[in-house]
């Protein structure tokens, strides 16, 4: 699967695919990304709760949470307790389930290869919410529409860095052409492995994975599910051709059953 979804979507001449590389090994859990995202994108308040989940009172991505910093306290971690932090975001999938199933065309692929909701088209059917393998996109109670990270479409179109990456004080969130980010991530992974950080792993970047490679990928220090990420997601629409075949034969079977039911002559 090519990593050029913009070309597949019909952009003949387009800028390089842009994305995020989130290096969680340098995240300090400051939540500047969460705040900057909300400020720039005018994302409404998403609940004020004290959860008891370490420093995480945001809880998960959703319609009004486009960056979410996870905190994992590993008290019984061998050697020394450790505190993992990771800023999660929409993966801007190469094969995006949300986009595939959207019946209105509200979800669209941009020239940067990112995935964006057009709010004036979305009718709030909720199909995308059920189709995202990462639980990213949500439907907002207050306006009935689906919302998620746009990779700051309005900023990157003007050559600016997305708000979260701009605000990140440790460069845990890096923005740039996906090719460059992938090289950088590989180098960082090698550095960490050389330093003995054996649990370090890249997440989502492999073009051979179930979503054709993510436009926003991660360097994690533990297994994905520890961070609330699915370990091996596969976009649901890969199975859709088979589903349609079964739907067609089931429909034919129903028609046949009705015909057979009428046998036995006239009343």
């Amino acid at each position, binding site marked *: 699967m090519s990593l050029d979804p913009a070309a597949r979507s019909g952009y003949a001449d387009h800028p390089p695919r842009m994305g995020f590389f989130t290096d969680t090994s340098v995240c300090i859990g400051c939540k500047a990304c969460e705040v900057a995202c909300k400020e720039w994108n005018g994302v409404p308040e998403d609940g004020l709760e004290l959860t008891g989940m370490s420093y995480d009172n945001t809880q998960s991505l959703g319609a009004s949470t486009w960056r979410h910093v996870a905190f994992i306290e590993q008290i019984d971690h061998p*050697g020394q307790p450790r505190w993992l932090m990771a800023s999660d975001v929409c993966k801007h999938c190469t094969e995006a389930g949300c986009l595939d199933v959207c019946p209105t065309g509200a979800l669209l692929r941009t020239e940067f290869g990112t995935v964006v909701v057009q709010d004036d088209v979305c*009718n709030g059917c909720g199909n995308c919410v*059920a189709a995202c393998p990462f639980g990213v996109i949500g439907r907002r109670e207050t306006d009935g529409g689906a919302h998620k990270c746009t990779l700051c479409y309005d900023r990157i179109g003007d050559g600016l860095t997305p708000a979260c990456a701009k605000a990140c004080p440790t460069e845990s969130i890096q923005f740039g052409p996906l090719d460059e980010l992938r090289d950088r991530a590989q180098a960082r992974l090698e550095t960490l492995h050389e330093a003995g950080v054996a649990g370090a792993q890249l997440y989502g970047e492999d073009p051979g994975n179930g979503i054709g490679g993510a436009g926003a990928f991660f360097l994690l220090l533990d297994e994905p599910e520890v961070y609330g990420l699915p370990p091996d*997601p596969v976009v649901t629409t890969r199975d*859709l051709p088979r589903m349609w075949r*079964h739907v067609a034969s089931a429909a034919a079977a129903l*028609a046949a059953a009705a015909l057979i039911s009428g046998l*036995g002559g006239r009343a």
Partner: protein
Amino acid sequence: MKRDEQLMVPAAEFGSYYGRPVIKEPVWGAPAIPGYLFLGGLAGASSPLAAVAEFSGRPGLALAAKTTAAGAIGLSVVALVQDLGRPTRFHHMLRVFKPTSPMSVGSWLLSAYGPAAGAAAACAITGLLPAAGRVATVAAAVTGPAVAAYTAALLADTAVPAWHEAHRELPYLFVSSAATAAGGLGLLLVRPEQAAPARNLALIGATAELTAKSLLLQRLGEVAEPYQSGRAGRLMEAAEILTAAGLTAAAVGGRNRIIAALAGAALVASSAFTRFGIFFAGRMSAGDPRYTVGPQRNRKDRKDRGDRGISPPPAGKPARAPAERGDLAAAR
């Protein structure tokens, strides 16, 4: 995913983030969406039944089935629109046609089927325009089964484990549940002399439904659990009892007006229970990270083992040696 991959999932050993769901629970509401699944099925199977009744000289059954189809599809469209986050924009469904979106395909199907079913019923009730009525009857009979079947893809084409993993069986379960409902309603509404096709359809549907359900549960492995526990489990169980009872009663006493009506009512109810059961099973499977993480972790471990040709780590333990804090600092 193959079945054996799921059966190997260890029962409780999986990592999660504070036990929180990995995917979102569908925002689709009850009773609107399971109600739609039921009514859409009832309508979609009633239309071919109506055509068969009409062309085999059973006007009573034809009229009942056409009226049922039109009423059910009308109600179900109301349910669908009302469940939208922005109901006034329901017509955006017809902005584009996307074969990758079952909801888009379904919207177009409904806009072909709905008017046909409505016209067929209107002509039958008023007795006007009999030729147009026959065309509409045939058009509704041809598109109806697709309306009854596509909703299986609507549910299965999601990240919801209990729905997606059932994508092979759900279409058959849905059409047989639809046949059960349409046949059952025919038995309830029409005198036995006219109801033979309804009775036959109900018998075929109920038998197929019981078969499809047990196949589905067998094939799903661990992900079958949501269908067997909690609210979904109770609904599925009630549905099964009603189906079996209705099937037996229709087979044995289907020519007695009272028994036929009771059997029909049981079958209609069983179809509704099945749809609600499937709906809640999906919701539950989405809300529990076990059903998302378990099968995926298992698949990933198998892939990794294959790639690296080494033996697997013990279940539930980290795959690699954990990092030391000092190493992290050194690596900066």
